[in-house]
């Protein structure tokens, strides 16, 4: 079973709507994760504002935070390996994620 772990910067919600700006990549990414979660993929998401302990307990996350500061977030892991750093996947990258995760093209909910 594939695992995706996301370590978000501090934010109010998975879509970040409480902030001053709404990032469409973040919203689409959140939607994609909830779709992937319904398949055979383990999705874990942690928010620094709400689950800071998860950041401390993951040595890789903690080391990156210590070294590069809060700008390193979001950190996205595939099966325990850092896959993306400091940003969410873009519109062009998302189909690739679906392929990699599900082994096929699927985007409709």
């Amino acid at each position, binding site marked *: 079973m594939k695992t995706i772990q996301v370590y978000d910067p501090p934010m109010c*919600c998975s879509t970040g*709507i409480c902030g001053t700006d709404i990032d*469409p990549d973040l*919203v689409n990414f959140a939607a994609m994760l909830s779709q992937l979660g319904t398949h055979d993929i383990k999705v874990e998401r942690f928010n*620094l*504002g709400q689950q800071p302990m998860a950041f401390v307990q993951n040595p890789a996350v903690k080391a990156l935070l210590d070294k590069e500061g809060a700008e390193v977030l979001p950190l996205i892991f595939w099966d325990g390996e850092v896959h993306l750093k400091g940003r969410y996947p873009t519109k062009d990258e998302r189909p690739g994620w679906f392929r990699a995760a599900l082994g096929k093209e699927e985007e409709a909910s």
Partner: protein
Amino acid sequence: MKLPFYQPDAATSTRFLFFTGKGGVGKTSLSCATALKLVEAGKRVLLVSTDPASNLDEVLETKLTNQPTPIAGAPGLDAMNINPVEAAAAYRERLIGPMRGLLPEAALRSMEEQLSGSCTVEIAAFDEFSGLIGNPDAAKDYDHVIFDTAPTGHTLRLMSLAKAWDQFLDKNTSGTSCLGPLAGLEKQRVIYEATVNTLADASATTLVLVSRPQGAALREAERTSKELRAIGVGNQCLVVNGTFETDCPEDVTAQAMQQRGLSALTAASEFISSMPSFIVPLRPINILGIGGLRVLLSGDGQGKCVKADESGWTPPEMESLEDLVATIEQQGNGVIMTMGKGGVGKTTVAAAIAVMLARRGHSVHLSTTDPAAHVAQTLHGKVEGLTLSKIDPAAETAAYQGEVMLAQGAAMDDAGRALLEEDLRSPCTEEIAVFRAFAREVGRGTGRFVVLDTAPTGHTLLLLDASEAYQRELERQARSTQPEEVLKLLERLRDPDFTRILLVTLPEATPVHEAAALQEDLLRARIEPFAWVINQSLLNSGSCDPLLQCREASEHRYLREVVEKQAKRTAWLPWQAEEPVGPDALAHLASSSLLQARGDVIQTL
């Protein structure tokens, strides 16, 4: 209409009592006096203020915190303030504290910034509030818990939040929804449900609607009554505080005041007879301290008036509102904001300034950030060059949701749009929408005059607090799609040539001290008030009624305090025999000066 005297009864009182109503109607005095009565009947009582600009400290003459503090002279009575900003700080500390030393400083700082938003502030206060009601263990040492609430708009929001979050959680389907700062508190959900149930339980909760014998206050009580009934708070009663009768037939001021009260009560007779209603007579003194509180609900004695020696007292120099307007109009555009405690007449002063500017040929927009304001009623009629609007939280939220979906939804796939739509239904969205509307109204002042009537102090402080939090967040972001008016908001509020803040007060202890505290808060935020306005002064009224004479004499020290200690400029407005409604009455009010005050009262009758 003969109403019974208000006498709280320990035998029949419910466990929870909420005192609510328009600003300045006497919620704090009445809730304190009620607490005192119950304590004197042998009960243990916890008195809680939910007003971000609480005046409990001053009335109880005790320094309070967000923990119960015993009140000297009233054994069995404890009191506390739920201060939203402090509640949010405590909530932040609960999350961040354990991380110190474990996470780098930069990560801690970014947590702190995220948890400083207005939604966190609101949720944290709400969490403390519902903890006292919905958690069976929290206030178990007390027979009664009495809430002295903030002026209406803020309280409606607080009481309806329990239901709003409850419904949002129920309807949420994706499980990744926007709980905002509630996420850290989600385990409390059972407490929020209990809060909703307790508020609706007539054997547990009484809502005491407090009013003055005054049209606007009674109309607001009626609106609040309906809105709270709609969310289930059904056990209600009404207390009309400050009723006045004179034995002085030849005294025009006293006769006018009595008449004004009677007409207001008659106009509201249907509402008044719809529920148990009571009166508390006007007292000659400011209700301060345990002694003062006993006077408020004493059946007979009106409290002794110790009159100051009048000889040799001359009123300090004060301008008319027209004098202030003459200075303001030289700029040609900008924002004028009226601020202060509830019930001091911010709406009246704002409307009077707007009318005066419009009649002098300027383009003027009059708006309000107070969810419970009555701007249109005060203006009552069209004025050439003057437009009117109101920040309606529900309408602003809907518009904001639509705007976000249109602007951002385009770049999203269907699943993203669905998720965004769902998260936008979070109660937190309202905070953002109202804040943006505030920024928009301020921004309109670049091309004309905008007169903004703000909500009572507490609510306004939270709005300014949000402005600063947003500014900090914006400064960290490279990319911003925010409109120019949001980006420039704080800069505009801080520009003394663009934004003119008028602190409105009555010549009484609590409104003056609340305005002084507000002034300090503003100065800390680098916003400097332009002038103070003293409203409803009885100075030079020439009354022969002993109670009014006494009230007039007690104004002196507060007039002096404002002019000599607090204000750079002070305008003075007389008490009006009729509620100043309509363009002519407002313009007349604005041109009143201290010298002609006495002649005016005689003319009006």
